[in-house]
């Protein structure tokens, strides 16, 4: 009995501490050292990647500006029923003047105007024009304000104006996400945008469809090239490799512009075809400023991302397998289809993910060669970031795009299996 108890007691290390403890300590030290080694990278990724992305995503729901600029008005509007179609009472106008006097002083009223103008056209000039006169009012002595305000700008006499302010007053809003899927936030709940303003869903669909087509054409073109690269003698394949990599070292803008010179109606391809007599002079091919142009240019630009993973996977496929298959009487096709191809699938998978994810966020190439029917959702995001300054909508579009990519990645994992992806 006593013997057994002694045996189950803790095993001791040379210095007398329990072995388990001393092992854990040294492991911990090792882990800490490893962590310190990667700490600069971790910190870099956190600061330059994760935090900016998180803050950008947060913008898609953030809507503090209305409540911050017009705190009293927002509170007073709670007691107003916008569905009656009547104007709010004097209390709201009074609160509004108090808010605006502060806002004009801080010069934040025009900002709010631009924010609300995304929802209701005309708000921007209403706030800008009213600002100067409103700022001069004294909330204590100049009331009542209802008539005065309507005098300053008749927009303040529209129930719609106040309904818009009330609808968009919450600090967290789903408005941007609704806009991103061609809907809008109204007092009666979420509603579809008017038909002649619906474009974003269409662009999402187009972006996905064209990215798929580009990925597929990359697979078709890259497979034979990678096969050659992997099977030719080293000297020849190195030369070929340089040809594959060469476009990588050229600026993206230059490559895209070069396609313009090639594809336009007075361009190299059309001129050659006309000269050869294959195409009539007045029926030149339209292969730029449309979807075809985008697909051609982007396939070319993304091709190396497909070739490289395919090549590195194909290199590892032993020649002896195909030889063995042939020696047992398989035809060339059977050998390829049953032996070689299945082994090359991980390369196709890795290349497809790379190309597809790059394609879905592409911006500059569709902008230059896409015309009207070949532009992507990212071109719209760029518009809202740099021209309309509607960063909330841009963030919502970006978040949706990110979600779609993650979803597709998950589907891909379910169908193909992410373990089945190799970069070499």
């Amino acid at each position, binding site marked *: 009995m006593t013997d057994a108890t002694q045996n189950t007691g803790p095993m001791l290390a040379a210095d007398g501490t329990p072995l388990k403890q001393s092992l854990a300590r040294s492991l911990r030290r090792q882990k800490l050292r490893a962590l310190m080694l990667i700490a600069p990278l971790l910190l870099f990724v956190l600061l330059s990647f994760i935090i900016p992305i998180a803050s950008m995503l947060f913008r898609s729901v953030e809507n503090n500006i209305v409540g911050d600029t017009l705190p009293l008005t927002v509170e007073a509007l709670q007691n107003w029923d916008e569905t009656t179609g009547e104007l709010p009472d004097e209390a709201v106008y009074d609160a509004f003047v108090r808010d605006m006097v502060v806002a004009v002083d801080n010069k934040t009223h*025009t*900002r709010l105007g631009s924010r609300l*103008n995304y929802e209701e056209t005309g708000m*921007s000039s209403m706030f800008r024009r009213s600002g100067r006169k409103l700022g001069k009012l004294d909330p204590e002595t100049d009331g009542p304000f209802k008539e005065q305000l309507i005098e300053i700008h008749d927009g303040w006499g529209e129930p719609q104006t106040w309904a818009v302010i009330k609808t968009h007053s919450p600090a967290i809003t789903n408005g941007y996400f609704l806009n991103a899927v061609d809907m809008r936030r109204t007092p009666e709940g979420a509603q579809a945008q008017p038909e002649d303003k619906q*474009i974003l869903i269409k662009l999402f669909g187009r972006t996905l469809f064209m990215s798929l087509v580009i990925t597929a054409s990359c697979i078709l073109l890259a497979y034979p090239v990678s096969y050659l690269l992997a099977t030719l003698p080293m000297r020849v394949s190195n030369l070929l490799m340089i040809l594959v990599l060469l476009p990588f070292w050229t600026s993206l803008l230059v490559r895209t512009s070069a396609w313009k010179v090639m594809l*336009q*109606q*007075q361009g190299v391809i059309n001129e050659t075809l006309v000269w050869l007599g294959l195409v009539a002079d007045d029926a030149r091919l339209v292969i730029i*400023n449309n979807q075809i142009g985008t697909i051609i240019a982007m396939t070319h630009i993304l091709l190396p991302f497909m070739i490289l993973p395919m090549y590195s996977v194909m290199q590892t496929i032993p020649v002896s397998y195909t030889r063995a298959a042939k020696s047992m009487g398989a035809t060339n096709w059977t050998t390829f289809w049953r032996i070689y191809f299945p082994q090359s699938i991980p390369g196709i998978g890795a290349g497809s993910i790379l190309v597809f994810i790059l394609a879905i966020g592409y911006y500059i190439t569709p902008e230059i060669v896409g015309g009207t029917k070949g532009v992507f959702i990212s071109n719209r995001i760029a*518009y809202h970031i740099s021209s309309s300054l509607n960063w909330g909508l841009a963030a919502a579009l970006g978040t949706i795009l990110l979600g779609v990519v993650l979803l597709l990645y998950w589907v891909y994992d379910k169908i193909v299996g992410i373990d089945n992806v190799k970069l070499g």
Partner: protein
Amino acid sequence: MKPTKTLLTAAALATAAGGVSAEEMTIVSWGGAYSKSQLKAYHEPYSEKTGITILNDDSSNEAVAKLRAMNEAGNITWDVVDVVAADAIRLCDEGLAMEIDFDTQLAAAPDGTSASEDFGDLLVSDCFIPQIVYSTTFGYRTDLVGDTPPTDVCAVFDLEAYPGKRSLEKRPINNMEWALICDGVPKDDVYDVLATAEGQDQALAKLDTIKDSVVWWSAGADTPQLLADGEVIMGSTYNGRLFSVIEEQNQPVAMLWDAQVFDLDGWIIPTGLSEERQQRALDYIMFATDTQRLADQAKYISYGPARASSAPLVGQHADLGIDMAPHMPTDPENAKNTFLYNYEFWADYRDDIDAKFQAWLAQ
């Protein structure tokens, strides 16, 4: 915690101060021939006079978004920024551009006329100091339009008389106005009509008649290139770009000044600069927007000076030696039929009409 914070702030201040030394300022503009004209007319004489080194940043294209990002980060690295008037109004609304007192902070004309009177109607925003008047107008290939060259902007919509492709900017501004004018709407009513949904539909319906023959551009250099390549027979772009195609590159292209749309380009000073930097920026602006300097710029590029007092001083092109006055959009011969970009209208309607325009394009 507190000492650390102080230390950090001190460090931040030190870097901020070190980043912009006393003898340097960053001026943002559009790049290309335009920046070159500013370099010759403003930067070089100013550096000579004060010894301040001027750094150029060609970011005007995305100035609004970048200024907003800088403002949020609390680190403004630009001192003076060149933007178009519509962007200036946006920046002013967002509180990103400083308000200017035109009469005290800008130089008066040589004859003593105050700056606000000298610029006149062109002061479209409290934050914006106009520099040039440019116009968006059409150019056409003289060898591709047959025996009767177009004299009227509606030639753009006339596929029968002028078959072939034409290039238009990929945004509603200007295109909607031209479409309405050519659909019979009187010039003075254009914006009233465009403010209604029916008017917008009318403009899009008119554009629809030529949609299949349009190449849409997004960069100012596109139309000159398309014209030079013979890809389009006519196209809209900025008048200075057409000047360089016609006079500097000698291409068979001519100007169609009819219904040109005047627009303004000028300076803003970002808010949130340190006192010292703000003073320097104001000093530069005072120098660069005086009567002589504005007239000097016209030696290098065919845009009209924004001051009335500069017009008589416009001379000859610095390299070509031709008279510049007849190439100015404001020249009476060119300005028989014009209209001015309606800033307030587009500030309100831009997002709404742009969504419709893009939806129409994608159809």
